[in-house]
């Protein structure tokens, strides 16, 4: 029977079945400094990590972005989170990086970058944006701390079989339209609950044409449409991306031969099919407090929901391009890879930021690469701050927070109330659009700048 990419991976990982649930084997468990409840509970049971060789850690949520010294954390509690992470990793002999390692970074940047994420794997992490890793043809999803503890103790997870959805995106993206714009358009189309209970496979010529980094951005925000996971079938771009990565298989050809069996068979049936024309897309921005509140930059603020307008301090009917911003954040697991920084730097180059702007690379290695290309210099000359890798102002857990009513143009993934600081107002957009907003001081159509 014809099977989808998801079904092939799922079937390969079922150890046992019981009362409608499948016990799945977990190939990779990525852990970070937010996972202390799971580690504490595991220790309380007198257990240690059962398979440290399937586990990898990097600190990201709580690390300061101003330096690589935990002592620079703004409070003792935040500092303690980074230190507790380190203690837990060592106690359990989990392969990991520390804050001062060049390979440190946001867990969803580090996994693909290090070749920890491979096609055909089941990969989990205590973070909802684990859907990112599906870009390489893995089944990757976020879990809670009780599930983390279960994986640490058993290397398995009880899961309900998921429904499947295929989102086919065809056509050629117009200039100025990035992967971020594509996923914002998908979420606007199907809604924040549009894919609840589903694993999404992104297909179509526009997806095939995307670089791996673009696919990572696409899959990253699957959770913002409610999807359990997002995935893209592995192809030559995937294999090229993985070749030579530190944890890529040594016998790479043998691995590729297996990976080539993974793509969805012709005739496989999905529970739901959605399609989108990439050629009709424009650069997008969000105006409200859910990622589904996204519109082309040429649009106007809608009348509903009122609660969102009230929180965002906006009036129905005003042009999105008339919205003045106070601050810019370029970073997060959605948009902090080298291609993102190049796109932002291309707009910042030779211009000056009119508002405070910060760039937080996704990993130490992205930072290093950007510096080798002189992007840090471009950003600094344009008045942008150049920081160290971590989640930073996407979620503010390290203390990088917006102020009440401060309006932030952000390349992150969530515009929820209070997400970037209590009362802070978030507009989501692509790296180039965020850089354009920085140099104009308004939400700006990047096509009018470049």
């Amino acid at each position, binding site marked *: 029977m014809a099977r989808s990419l998801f079904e092939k991976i799922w079937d390969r990982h079922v150890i046992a079945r019981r009362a409608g649930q499948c016990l799945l084997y977990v190939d990779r468990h990525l852990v970070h400094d937010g996972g202390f409840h799971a580690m504490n509970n595991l220790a309380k049971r007198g257990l240690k990590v059962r398979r440290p*060789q399937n586990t990898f850690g990097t600190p990201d949520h709580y690390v300061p972005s101003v330096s690589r010294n935990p002592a620079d954390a703004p409070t003792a509690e935040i500092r303690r989170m980074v230190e507790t992470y380190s203690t837990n990793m060592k106690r359990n002999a989990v392969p990991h990086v520390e804050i001062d390692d060049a390979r440190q970074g946001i867990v969803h940047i580090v996994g693909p970058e290090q070749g920890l994420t491979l096609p055909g794997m089941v990969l989990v992490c205590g973070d909802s944006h684990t859907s990112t890793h599906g870009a390489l043809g893995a089944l990757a999803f976020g879990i809670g701390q009780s599930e983390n503890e279960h994986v640490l103790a058993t290397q398995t997870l009880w899961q309900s079989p998921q429904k499947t959805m295929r989102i086919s995106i065809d056509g050629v993206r117009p200039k100025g339209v990035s992967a971020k714009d594509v996923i914002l358009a998908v979420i606007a189309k199907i809604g924040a609950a549009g894919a609840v209970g589903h694993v999404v496979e992104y297909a179509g010529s526009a997806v095939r044409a995307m670089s791996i980094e673009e696919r990572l951005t696409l899959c990253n925000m699957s959770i913002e449409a409610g999807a359990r996971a997002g995935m893209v079938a592995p192809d030559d771009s995937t294999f090229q991306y993985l070749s030579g990565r530190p944890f890529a298989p040594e016998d790479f050809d043998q*691995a590729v031969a297996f990976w080539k069996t993974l793509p969805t068979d012709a005739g496989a049936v999905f529970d739901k099919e959605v399609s989108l024309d990439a050629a009709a897309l424009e650069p997008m921005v969000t105006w409200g407090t859910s990622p589904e509140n996204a519109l082309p930059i040429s649009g106007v603020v809608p009348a509903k929901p009122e609660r969102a307008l009230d929180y965002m301090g906006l009036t129905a009917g005003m042009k999105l391009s008339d919205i003045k911003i106070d601050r810019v954040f370029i970073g997060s697991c959605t948009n902090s890879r080298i291609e993102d920084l190049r796109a932002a730097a291309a707009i910042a180059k030779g211009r000056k930021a009119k508002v405070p702007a910060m760039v937080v690379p996704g990993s130490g290695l992205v930072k290093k690469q950007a510096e080798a290309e002189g992007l840090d210099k471009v950003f600094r000359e344009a008045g942008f701050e150049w920081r160290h890798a971590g989640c930073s102002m996407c979620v503010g857990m390290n203390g990088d927070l917006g102020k009440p009513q401060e309006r932030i143009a952000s390349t992150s993934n969530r515009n929820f109330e209070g997400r970037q600081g209590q009362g802070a107002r978030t507009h989501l957009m692509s790296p180039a659009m965020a850089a354009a907003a920085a140099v104009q001081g308004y939400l700006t159509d990047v096509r009018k700048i470049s």
Partner: protein
Amino acid sequence: MAEKFTRFTAVAAPYDPVNVDTDQIIPARFLKAPRENGYGGFLFHDARERPDFFLNHPVFGKAKILVANTNFGCGSSREGAPYAFHDAGFRSVIAPSFGDIFFNNCMKNGIVPVRLEEKICLSIREYLKHHAGTELTVDLQANRVTTPVGTFEFAVPPFFREMLLEGVDEIGLTLSLLPQIEAFEKDYAASMPWLAPLS
């Protein structure tokens, strides 16, 4: 260790917004708190600043069941969200749909997420607004919710229902399958010799 749940009767509060995310349920800055100190005070911490928020209501503020709207608990995987509900005394949330991770996290924390049709949730919320203090009963044994507007069947995955009804420890259960897990791992590794362990 799973907390047992069979049947729960309590005052219910209505909460209308769709897409209530876990950042609303518990802002991220509270997630570093030790669990021993309790998470109840963090529940909807910032949303409570609105005077008309349900937890500020003299009657709904004492509710231990929430009747909410579509896609409740979307967003972040933070288990602090069900910790906060649990430690504030809530044992059930009723909504047309839930964020998948929140749904799973609830069941691991002795909270039963009940999915009922949108129009049923709406009619329960409307009734509650006009009859503050109304109690609902969530009966997991019978898969049934009893409300003044009707009695409704619901379903949680049977595996997790069993865990909740019996208070089974899921990790203990899985570890009892260790020989089967080990046999799987051996076959799996043999079929993919190129997949080297991390070190």
